[in-house]
């Protein structure tokens, strides 16, 4: 082999090894570290097990927000067809309102309520998380332009 060919072989070999290593890492990480998104209807129909982390999204049901002891809060997330109670301990995002879209991250507890570890903020008033739009469309509650 000429030095040039040798250099090229070394380069390709290094690239192959690195990408194989990278791919292995990525695949094993993807297997364990993705979060699924479910609408309240999905939560009922898919029988999600307690303790399995996922994201839930929908609208905050009107008159469902109750602020409890020491920064605790409970509310209900609905997509019109189903509703799931949510408990949260922390500071709610500034744009959290009844009747508005919300995405929360957490898992179901044994009593069937969603214990949220994070409640996601929207950036602006016009914006609705795409997952929420989709969940509302599937349950037939989405009106174009009505947000």
């Amino acid at each position, binding site marked *: 082999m000429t030095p040039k060919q040798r*250099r090229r072989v070394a380069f390709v070999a290094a690239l192959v090894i690195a990408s194989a290593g990278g791919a292995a*890492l*990525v695949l094993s990480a993807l297997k364990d*570290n993705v*979060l699924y*998104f479910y609408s309240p209807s999905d939560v009922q129909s898919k029988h999600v097990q307690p303790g399995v982390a996922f994201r839930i999204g929908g609208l905050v049901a009107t008159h469902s927000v109750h602020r409890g002891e020491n920064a605790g809060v409970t509310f209900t997330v609905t997509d019109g067809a189903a509703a799931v109670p949510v408990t949260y301990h922390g500071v709610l995002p500034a744009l959290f309102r009844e009747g508005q879209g919300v995405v929360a991250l957490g898992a179901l507890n044994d009593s069937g309520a969603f214990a949220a570890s994070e409640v996601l903020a929207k950036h602006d008033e016009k914006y609705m998380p*795409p997952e929420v739009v989709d969940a509302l469309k599937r349950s037939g509650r989405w009106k174009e332009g009505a947000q």
Partner: protein
Amino acid sequence: MTGEIGQLALCLALALSLVMAVSGIAGARNGAASAQAIASGAANGLFVFIALAFGALTYASIVSDFSLLNVAQNSHTLKPLIYKISGVWGNHEGSMLLWVLVLAVYSAAISWSRRGSSQLTSAALGVQGILAIAFLVFILLTSNPFLRLDPAPFEGNGLNPLLQDFGLAVHPPMLYCGYVGLSASFAYAAAALITKERDWARAARPFMLVAWIALTLGIALGSWWAYYDLGWGGFWFWDPVENASLMPWLVATALLHSALATERTGAFRSWTLLLAIAAFSLSLIGTFLVRSGVLSSVHSFANDPERGVFILAMIVGAIGGALGLFAWRAPSLEGGTSFEPASRETALLLNNVFLVASTATVFVGTLYPLALDAMTGTKISVGPPFFAITFAPIFIALLLLVPFGPRLGWRRGDLAAALRTLAPAVGIALVTTFAILTFTSPHTLAGAGAFGVAAWLIAASAIDLRARGLKTLQAGALASALAHAGLGVTLMGVAGTTLWKSEALEELGPGETMSVAGYTLRFDGVKAAQGPNYDAARATITVLSGGREIAVMHPEKRIFPAEGQDTIQTAIRTTIVSDLYLALGDQRDKGRWIVRAYVNPLAPLIWLGALVMALGGFAALWSRLRVSRTAGAAVPAPAE
């Protein structure tokens, strides 16, 4: 009137970009000086007209001309002047106009540059012209900021309050200087393929450096803004939009290193071309991700899928065209000298392998959820744990190897000598790791190891400078030492915050206290306060340490009546080695409020490190511009 001037300027700019594309390519093909001169003139004209259009929109925003739809939707008479100006790029149409403005600035700069052959410059201008055509058509057809509104409303809708912030006023222009700056190295790479010019990397280098510096600062500003403005105490969320800016940075970093070898010894010639194409393609993909509405992220603003299709078509055109050109022409650019396994080239090769592999992990983590949703309708998200086990190990491996690069010679280096020189740094790194592991808690090897790697980077940079001799130091050597040490400083900040962060959340009434990491916080109540365009609930919190009052802090909650939104204004007390960070939450009954407090040790180092990296970039830029001015092409490139 302003609207018509802007509209007309945009149309003339489109005509000029057509002239620039045609005459630029023609001037490169037949070498005619007249065609090249026309391309140069068109580039400068393009800049003038787009600046005029941008100025018109800015003027309309300053004087609150609500007969323009864009101004009516995004501005308000009560908004402070600085946010009337920054509001110009706080919305989709204006930000695309800023994008082409930056493109025009780079085009004009290319036309003034005397670093490449006249053919190369001409072809680069031709490519920039094509990009300008695509973006101007995009603006005029789908995102025109000069659309009229009749009748004009009395008052505008206002700007999203989260964007009414100094950090976010500066962040987008900085990031765009980086994104669009990569168009210049893309244009030079395509120009090299068109003209078969082998020495293109030298001409493109200042543009690469400017783009890299701007990206570094832009990403750091964005992260800093998220830190103090969102009130969550975090600095990086592996959010798809953050990833979209990180990927071009990683590839641009690889490009800077690979181009160094290409320029110096002719090694990796094709690879460097590919990286230049990839870096700009990732910038376009970043634009697509942010502007198409396909993402659900904290950065997602209301937007329009049709624009996404247009940008997607541009990405396919740019990547497809450039790769086609590459396949056709790259073989004729081959050739370079060979190098030994222990050499600067090998170090740069490894740098590139690791940077590209880490980019690939971010790419998969960002785009896999989109692909899965498009194909199966399953919605998933990929969060920090994914990146912690994929990106982090690859990047740490890269950081371990970084200090060897500057210590190895071109073509044939002496690994044993490099190790001997760096031995004290190895010692410092091991001692640091051991000390952190022993004397601090929690005792995690990963955390202590991160500090060890950071110490290794900083110490090795200092040793490198010392070994080169401080008196005879070249700016290029200073550049690499600063950039590499900056990485270490940032890593130290990241590790310190992640490892030792304390957090407390409590509901407090007047006079009540809470404690976090040795501080006692006394809540002295909330008063109403007035801003120019908001009402605020302003808390007074006295910080006590060891029984002594050390500070009074005022976190706020602001209500913007025009926009009907609330924002959190955090209060941060920094001592460089640690941040005390307070955010005011909801009001509960009878003057009781939720207060969230964080102590983030070493957090400021995260952004300080980025600043040091950018200084390294400036040093490299300075050495380049100085060399070209004093001696022209004959002087060998310094050892950046």
